[in-house]
């Protein structure tokens, strides 16, 4: 065994520090390097816009002049919003649409999912897929078809209604209600919200049905079997087993409906345009936000509006959580 030369020892020392460094890098830094693409992308596309829009909401900015033209405005944009009649109108419209298009979705979806799950319907898979179809169809395509259906002169809906009104069976009802035909679905403010709500409901009830179906499948069969042994009817099973055990899914589905409907945009845009139609009956918050920012170029106001919307969605979600959440989550823990 010969004594290692100085050069050798030096080389070994360098190698050992290198390997120690490599070790440290692998253990401490490499994991961050490997997951960094997510954080980098998140910082660019998630965090930055978020922070920038908050920053923007305290400025007046017309984007045509470039970033250098941003002017500090303090709370001006928020004050303006609080006193803007159209902002409140848009928020009101959005909430009305949330109720008249959101509530029926769930009232239809829950019994439907129950029927599908209980095997009351043949060809279950076919119907599940069919109900889901509207959800995966492009909102723009759907809205274009619906605008044809709602046509004043040549729309399918008005053709059907005209036929019904001309029959003896229903004609009296139209006269009694003094309905003027043809109905200008997308022109008169009284019909704009129902027209949008029908479209939104049609598009989303299948999504909710599938959600509830998934939830129902987590309810143990034995509970139903025991209920049947006790002589419970289908209605009683639905009332006393299905509904209570479905609460966590209801919380989830209703939260999604709230968030989705508060951001309602495509459907009213195609049906009535960015102006929201007659008397702004179809002007949703998201439409007004888009118009303020990208058509009128008041970027600061639009940013403030988006943060106001965040606040409203937060409050609604909290209310929803109080209604459905607490109890159901506690039951899980227990």
């Amino acid at each position: 065994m010969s004594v290692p030369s100085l050069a050798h020892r030096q080389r070994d020392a360098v190698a050992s520090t290198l390997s120690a460094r490599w070790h440290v890098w692998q253990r401490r830094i490499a994991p961050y390097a490997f997951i960094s693409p997510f954080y980098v992308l998140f910082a660019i596309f998630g965090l930055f816009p978020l922070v920038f829009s908050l920053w923007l909401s305290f400025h007046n900015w017309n984007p045509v002049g470039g970033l250098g033209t941003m002017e500090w405005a303090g709370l001006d944009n928020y004050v303006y919003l609080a006193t803007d009649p159209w902002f409140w109108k848009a928020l009101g419209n959005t909430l009305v649409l949330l109720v008249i298009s959101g509530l029926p979705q769930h009232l239809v979806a829950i019994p439907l999912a129950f029927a599908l799950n209980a095997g009351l319907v043949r060809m279950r898979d076919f119907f599940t897929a069919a109900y889901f179809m509207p959800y995966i169809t492009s909102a723009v395509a759907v809205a274009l078809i619906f605008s044809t259906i709602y046509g004043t002169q040549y729309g399918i809906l008005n053709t059907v209604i005209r036929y019904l009104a001309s029959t003896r069976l229903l004609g009296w009802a139209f006269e009694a209600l003094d309905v003027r035909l043809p109905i200008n679905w997308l022109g008169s403010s009284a019909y704009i919200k129902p027209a949008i709500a029908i479209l939104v409901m049609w598009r989303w009830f299948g999504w909710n049905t599938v959600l509830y179906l998934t939830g129902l499948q987590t309810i143990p069969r034995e509970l139903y079997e025991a209920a049947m042994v006790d002589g419970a009817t289908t209605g009683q099973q639905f009332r006393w087993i299905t509904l209570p055990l479905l609460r966590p899914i209801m919380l989830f589905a209703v939260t999604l409906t709230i968030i989705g409907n508060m951001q309602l945009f495509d459907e009213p845009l195609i049906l009535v345009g960015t102006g929201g139609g007659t008397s702004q009956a179809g002007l949703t918050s998201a439409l007004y936000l888009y118009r303020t920012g990208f058509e009128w170029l008041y970027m600061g106001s639009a940013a403030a509006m988006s943060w106001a919307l965040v606040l409203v969605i937060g409050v609604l979600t909290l209310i929803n959580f109080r209604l459905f959440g607490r109890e159901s989550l506690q039951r899980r823990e227990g």
Partner: protein
Amino acid sequence: MALTVWVMPAGAGTKIVVGAFPNLDAAIKAVLPAFEQAHPDIAVELQVLGYEDYHNALLTALAAGSGAPDVAALEIGYVARYVARGGLTDLTQAPFHVRELTPLWVPYAVGQVTTTDGRIVAVPTDIAPGTLFYRRDILADAGADIQSVVTWDDLLALGRKVTRDLNGDGRADVFLVGDAATVARAMFRGDIPEGEGVYFDRNGRPVVTSERFVKALTLAQRIRREGLDAQIGAWSNEWYEAFRRGTVAIEISGAWFGGHLADYIAPETAGKWGVTNLPEGMYVSWGGSFYAIPEQSRNKEAAWTFIRFLTTRLDSQLTAFRAINAFPALMEAWDDPVFDEPVPFLGGQRARRLWAETASKIQVAVVDPGDAVAEELVNAAISQVLNEDRDVRSALEEAQQLILRRLRR
């Protein structure tokens, strides 16, 4: 998706990027071969996006301070918004000296890109004089004559004649016009007092409660009340369908509208249409395109060479006209024999001469940065007046208040 067309091999001197939207891009492509020959040292890259996407992308590039093309096409609907505040190069300065060239173009189009502080930030390439399109056959069947329409009230009288129930089911099948709002919009665009804009006076004060607007909305309301319009919103499927079925007698639009009818809306109605000027000697602008140089461009001189080539040369303007019917902003072009040719789609009428004469009579109107806001708020007033039968003056009062509020004037 952006469509990039390499027209010249790379490395041929300066390269400029030209941004445009359909189908103005077709006009540029048609002129390009001649430009290449005249300027072999300038390579042109054409970037085309859909109409709205293009303007939004341009807005983003202007906001971010990079990414804008060297030459940016602008459609009239976006001009007021982009013109009023920085971002686009002032062409009155050296080395552009656009004022030496402005007498070449129709004055009102130059006015549309002149700011209140005297900058000129774009150059007109095509224009769209507004005219009244009418169906010869429908008018003849109803025993109506377009020559009888001298005043706007005559148009109402014409509407009473042509709006008829043909199949006896108690509902009208033929209407004067698709949407009464179109008539209102045409009316308040005419007769703009000297030095005023469509919606604002020279001091930036909204004028939407003036007699001009009251008269326009009142007539439109009468058309709606008497059931003379089909209550169909413009550019909807149902609107196209009405032209295909031949159930509306007139439409007021830009000269380009005939091209849309012939190309895809209702080509089978060829020969049945005619055009005439609006009643009461009103001459209005109904569209147009412009070229601008964003401030951030690094090849402004080459960009300017290209813009001049497109907009000041007779053959370029005529090539664009032949390619996409882009009505030349260059007045010299109107002397070309092609403007006296009969247009088969319009029943052989020499319509281009009429449009050229119309264009020369359109007044210069002041452009205001608030035009986009005012236009939408006035549209909201119109829809209330028509669909809710709201009082004209109170609807316009509200519009005026909302404009002042939004613009903080």
